């Protein structure tokens, strides 16, 4: 079980809800993934208005926990305003905090992120900050009151996997007790398996599933990969080495050719 802000989650796969071919495919993909948490962008889905009700009703019918996000916000102030609206609309203290610093990479503005996180924690939010692998930023986010970190794998939607696996491994090692969800940049299930093998607690996906040829199958494939990676981590992988070690001890073999 993964525990985030006192909530126990069986599934270690979180799913975004944007850019699916249709709401029907979105529902089926969420079911196939077994995800218990989905992220919803307030800004574009008009959740605040009566007008967006059909989409919101569809999300509610999925029976999963909603993690609203502040996607598309470029300043701390904007993100805080969006978070307040999200709390109103979705009735949850959870917020996935995104403060975008650069439009080409959509990478977090870590200064605005820390500022917004502190403001939101002070207002009773449970913040899931979308951050980089930077240790100092992680430190500041934790000091601001975040109890979960969401470091990126690669730029949002890029499908690259892990751009800086060494940095991420260092982050993991540095804060062994903090739940960490790798958010953004994964493309294929092997990326997710690797993330879990590295000891991260969960992965969050959107584009890799939503834009796949068959999102439902891809969601299921990712679920298997996350489970495999998690089990492998728990099972204790062998240490890689440079030279061969025979898997069958030689003295026991019947013939030596």
């Amino acid at each position, binding site marked *: 079980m993964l525990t985030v802000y006192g909530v126990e989650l069986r599934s270690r796969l979180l799913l975004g809800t944007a850019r699916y071919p249709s709401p*029907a495919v979105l529902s089926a993909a969420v079911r196939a993934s077994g995800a218990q948490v989905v992220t919803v962008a307030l800004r574009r889905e*008009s959740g605040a208005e009566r007008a967006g009700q059909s989409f919101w009703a569809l999300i509610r019918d999925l029976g999963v926990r909603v993690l609203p996000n502040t996607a598309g916000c470029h300043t701390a102030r904007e993100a805080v305003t969006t978070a307040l609206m999200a709390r109103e609309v979705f009735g949850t203290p959870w917020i996935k905090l995104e403060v975008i610093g650069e439009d080409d990479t959509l990478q977090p503005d870590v200064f605005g992120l820390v500022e917004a996180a502190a403001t939101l924690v002070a207002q009773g939010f449970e913040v899931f900050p979308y951050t980089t692998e930077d240790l100092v930023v992680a430190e500041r986010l934790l000091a601001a009151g975040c109890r979960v970190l969401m470091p990126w794998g690669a730029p949002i939607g890029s499908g690259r996997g892990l751009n800086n696996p060494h940095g991420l491994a260092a982050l993991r090692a540095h804060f062994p007790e903090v739940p960490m969800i790798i958010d953004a940049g994964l493309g294929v299930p092997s990326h997710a398996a690797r993330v879990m093998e590295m000891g991260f607690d969960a992965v969050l996906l959107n584009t890799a599933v939503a834009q796949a*040829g068959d999102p439902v199958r891809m969601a299921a494939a990712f679920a298997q990969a996350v489970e495999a990676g998690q089990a492998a981590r728990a099972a204790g992988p062998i240490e890689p080495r440079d030279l061969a070690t025979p898997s069958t001890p030689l003295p026991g073999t019947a013939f030596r050719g």
Partner: protein
Amino acid sequence: MRVAILGAGVAGLACALEFARRAVDVVVLERAAEGSAPRPQQCSWFAGGMLAPWCERESCGERVALLGAEGLSWWQEHFPGTALRGTLVVAHARDTAELVQFARRTRNYRRVDAPAIAALEPQLAQRFAAGLYFPDEGHLDPRAACDVLRRRLRELGVTLSFGASPSSAQLSGRVLVDCTGLAARTTLGDLRGVKGEMLILRPREPLITRPVRVLHPRMPVYVVPRADGTCMVGATMIESDDTSVSARSVLELLSAAYAVHPAFGEAGLLEVGAAARPAFPDNQPRLRWRDGTLYVNGLYRHGFLLAPSLARRAVQAVLEGTYFPEVMDEDDPSPRQRRLA
């Protein structure tokens, strides 16, 4: 048999024409006024008018592509302004991965390089290094097309009644074919609105001669040239039935047009608009019987593309009781089954 079509958007007009061609006594009843003063939900007024079944396959799948392909010849037959110049799909150098993915999910295209793009659209020379050309696709001006359909219906003696809710006298003794889009939501509970915002620009000189789609990871945008020298730029897709236009959407659409050609920056901005397109949860169109009324709905962002193929099927469903698995729900009873029940 006598038929009343509710709604004079493209679906209603196409259905009416198909009934009239079969010599069925048909009337068209529309609550909104005729012509240029649309209701917020009148999607046909704000449509792009692209007849692009093969491009649409990318997000809407094979069924929409096949139904849409049927519509091309129908439009050529009924609307002389239908242009068959294909669609050009381009991406900026940094988004070529989008082009690869788009190609994988569509068909009936050929790859074009910079010289081929320049040959197709001379004004776009040097602007794009790679693209896809869908030669068999078309486009039309939706407002002109609806004008022509209304005129044709009147020539055939069909009564079109605008600006009032239908009276019971108008409806009595007629099979109803409901083409009212999102307004049918009271009966079709799984219908939802997807807002599409659009602009109309008038460039100082003609820039393109066929629809140009620009692929971008966050927002695919198209620019459709019209015979009057304007260009329609569309369209956002927002899960909402609100029809206000946001500054941000206008900014994004204008940026996209500007990225196609900087001369769009000098164009006049004639109009911004939005409509809530009716869509079912799977974004696929439906013919659906409810209490003796046939609903033609869920055409989503494919009103002009799909209206002909749905109209043909609607006529057969009403006159012959035909069941069409590709556009009807599995549990939808045919009229014959309903009569027996």
